[in-house]
Each structure stands twice: as C-alpha cells, then as structure tokens.
C-alpha cells in the first residue's frame, strides 16, 4: 500500500489539527455512559443478554434521523481481525477492554470517526465524540444530540436521585467524562509540570501522561479529564475543565516565551536536531519518536520550522504505534522490524509534508 493511500485511510477528521487553541490542545473528547433499563449490566450479564442488548441497538439504527448518524457503520468485535481492533484502540475509537474482553461487543462508527458508540463495554452504551482543538462544548452538543436520538428508541436506566445509572459508581450521574489532550513541552522543559499536576488534581480533575506509563508522558502529551460525574451539570463540568485548560494554555505559552527569550538558540538547536533524527534515522523506538515529534511540533508552533504541517505530531503519534505499523506493513512485525518500519514511515511522511 502506498503511504498516501494508507494515510487517507487512516486519518480521522480530528487528526487534521485544525481547531481553536490547536497549537496546544490536540483533541477534545466527550464520553457519555448509558445503560438499558431492563437488561443486566455487562458486569454480570450472560452472552444472551449481551446479544439482546446489541440486537436492540442494531434495531434502532435504521430509525436514526440525526444527520451525522445516517451513515454509521457497525463493527462487531467478534468479526474483526485482532490487528484491525488494535488499530481502532490506537486511534482511541474503542477501548482495549472492548477489543479483548467484551461479549457481543461492537462499535458504531461514523465515516469521519467523529462519533463512535461502544456497545457492551463496561456499560451497554458509551457515546464518544472527538473534536480537534479545544471544542468541548461542540463535542458535548454532538454527544447530547446522539444521546437524545438513541433515547427516543431505547429505555435508559435513569434514576431521579442518582441520574444515569452506570456499572461503576465512579461514572454515575451524568455518565460524562470530558477530556482534552494537551501538548505541554514548555511546562515540562521548565519543570513546572510536576508542581502543576497536584494542583490540578485538587480541582477534581485528573492528569495523565498518555502514550506512557506513570508520571512520564511520552511526547509531552497529557490528558486532563474530570473525575466527578455526579452532582454537577454537564455544562458545569465542561466549564470547569475548560477554564482550567485555558489557564494551562496560558502557562504553557508563557513557558514557551521564556524559553525562546532565555535559551532561544538552544531551543532551536534541539528542534532541528530532532528533525534531523526524524528525517534520517533508519531504526527508531517509539519513545525516541515521541520525543522528537514533540520537539518538531514545538518548532512548528514557535515558527522555527515552516514547511511541515502541524498536524504531524497528532498524526504520527498515532500512526507509528505497533498496530498501525503492522497494518501498513500488511502483517505481523517483530519489535525490531517495527522500529525499522517506524523510521521509514516517519521519513516518508516528512518528505510528503514538504510537498503539501
């Protein structure tokens, strides 16, 4: 498969990187957890229950009139190849749980991949909307519209006191998890992130490094999301998260300014060294790729590099994961082969970028 073809097939609309504050915020995501009133929760349901849930949802599909849902496609987990599932996980469209453990699990996906609905994961229904940049409100309105539409045909588990009932009590109430993916190289380089994380936690929000374990965030990408789902309205949850994110954006911007002022040449050097590694390497581990991609993205944001589109970080962070590499290669790859593939893919992509 040619790289161009692979890219067009693999790109999701939210990877294009155009959105408000998209120099720092990569994506905004909304997830709503819903369950059907009369079926047991996935915690203990039998395969028959699971099948019944999936059937009910399949039956509603032809009835959906909301425009973006018209061409929604149903992907049943049992029918997918393991590699295909892995790619969906790497794109954050489905969870590893749905891919591996679910009984009659499925994913409903719109062609632009803006909306994905997981069926029979931890809850019967999980509606997810992903937008590029800081667009939590937009994502919430879309998720709400999808939710309303489904609710016209399905009987939800809802309780006046507790709200939307979920398998896990950590999601009850609104069932809403709002999260933003932010690229914070400035705060990491100036070593402010370790102080910032505890104070964000105190505000009832969770910060995690993504594509990495523990406190170490690969590619300086962090995910910030709400913890509390009960007792606050959806709008308030979004508002709180947005205002914290806006402050983090400001801090990141001033960190970048300080870096440019005090050690501009060193920063430029670092950016171009990373670009050199990306354009010339023959073997590349994911950790190194993430680090260099982060530097290059920063270089684009700061205006050092002009001929590379800024969606590069978003896109390559996802496309250089093992599942994608193997899909591109058309088969299983050993870790070393992946590192070679990764280096090739990045080199070729950067060459394409210059022609854009």
């Amino acid at each position: 498969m040619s790289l161009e073809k692979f890219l067009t097939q693999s790109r999701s609309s939210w990877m294009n990187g155009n959105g408000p504050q998209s120099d720092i915020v990569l994506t905004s995501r909304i997830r709503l957890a819903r369950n059907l009133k009369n079926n047991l929760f996935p915690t203990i349901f039998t395969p028959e229950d699971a099948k019944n849930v999936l059937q009910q949802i399949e039956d509603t599909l032809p009835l959906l009139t909301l425009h973006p849902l018209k061409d929604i496609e149903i992907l049943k987990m049992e029918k997918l190849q393991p590699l295909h599932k892995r790619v969906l996980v790497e794109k954050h469209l489905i969870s590893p749980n749905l891919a591996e453990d679910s009984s009659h699990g499925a994913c409903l996906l719109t062609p632009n991949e803006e909306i994905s609905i997981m069926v029979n994961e931890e809850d019967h229904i999980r509606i997810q909307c992903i937008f590029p940049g800081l667009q939590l409100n937009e994502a919430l309105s879309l998720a709400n519209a999808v939710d309303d539409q489904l609710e016209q045909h399905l009987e939800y588990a809802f309780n006046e006191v507790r709200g939307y009932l979920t398998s896990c009590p950590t999601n009850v109430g609104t069932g809403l998890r709002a999260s933003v993916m932010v690229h914070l190289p400035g705060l990491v380089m100036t070593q402010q992130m370790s102080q910032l994380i505890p104070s964000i936690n105190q505000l009832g929000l969770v910060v995690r490094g993504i594509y990495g374990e523990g406190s170490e965030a690969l590619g300086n990408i962090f995910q910030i999301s709400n913890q509390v789902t009960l007792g606050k309205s959806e709008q308030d949850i979004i508002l709180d998260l947005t205002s914290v994110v806006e402050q983090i954006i400001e801090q990141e911007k001033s960190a970048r300014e300080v870096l440019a002022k005090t050690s501009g040449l060193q920063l430029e050097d670092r950016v171009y060294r990373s670009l050199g590694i990306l354009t010339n390497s023959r073997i590349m581990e994911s950790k190194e790729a993430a680090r260099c991609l982060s530097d290059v993205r920063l270089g684009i944001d700061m205006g050092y590099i002009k001929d590379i589109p800024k969606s590069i970080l978003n896109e390559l962070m996802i496309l250089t994961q093992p599942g994608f590499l193997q899909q591109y290669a058309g088969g299983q790859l050993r870790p070393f082969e992946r590192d070679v593939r990764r280096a090739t893919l990045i080199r070729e992509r950067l060459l394409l970028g210059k022609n854009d």
Partner: protein
Amino acid sequence: MLCQECQKRPATLHFTKINNGEKTEVHLCEHCAGEKGDFFMFNQSPSLTINSLLAGLFNVQPSFQQEQQNKDYQANELVQCDKCGMTFSQFLKVGRFGCAHCYEVFETQLTPILRRLHGGNWKHSGKIPQRSGGTFHLKKKIDILKETLQTLVVNEEFEKAAEIRDEIRSIEKLMQEGGN
C-alpha cells in the same frame, strides 16, 4: 539490549524503579526477573485492578466505629438485589453493579460511597432523559421557573412574573394529566 544480570539473554522486561525520588532503570530477561524477587511481585498480583482498589475504598471503616455499627454493616452486606442477585458484599468486591435495580436496593449504603467518590455529591443535577425521565423532567422545569418567578417578583417585574406563573400552571396541569 542484553539482560543486565546475566549479560547473555536479551532483556525483555524493563522497569523504572523510583525509590525515594531516585530513579533507576532496570532491564532484565524473564529468567533473571524471576530470580529477582522484588520485581517478580508484579506478576504475582495480576488481580490488582482499578476495581479492587475501588473496593478497598468502599470498605474503609473509620476506626472509632463501634461494635453495634459493625453488626449493622455486616447485615448490610447481606442485602441482595432481587433482580440480578448481586449482594452488597459482592458489589464491594467487584466495585460494579449488576443492574439498574441495584441502585435502589443498595440506596442507603450507597450515599456515603458516592459522596466519597464524587467530592461530597450524592444527588444528580445534570441532564434528564426526555422519555425515561418521565414527569421528573417537568418537575425540574417547574423548579427553574419558580426560581425565575422569585427573582421577577423581587425585581417587581410583575407582567413577566404573571407569564411565568401561567406557564408553571400549565405544566402542572400537564403533569396531572400525565399522572392519570
């Protein structure tokens, strides 16, 4: 990369160990990792999941609690959902409910748990589904309208207030009809 212990086999397990803020990276092959006890412990507790951590959180019993309360607590654990058969103690173990009805059956035990998880909150104040929400939707709307009415009266905007009052009445009428 070779295993740093035996220097023979390739390292397949990579650990970052943080001890008193000091970070050490360790690269071992499976064989040597098995021999090094302190790393092996990861493999021995695969069941330490988020849910078992949650279950631990629910189980926290303040130390000052008296015998009698403990007995009540034990009785609580035997409460069983008549729809899915899950007992409260099972719920504490898995950290997840079996069905929507569990929320009603475990209602009294649940409030303190939810408060702990949701920063003191135990009551929903967000979206209400159009259909499944039933008349609750209308009740909520009346509450909001009543608040608006109050402000209008305080501000002496009586004409608008009368409109709101009529709206409340018509909704109340609608609810009664729905109820019958």
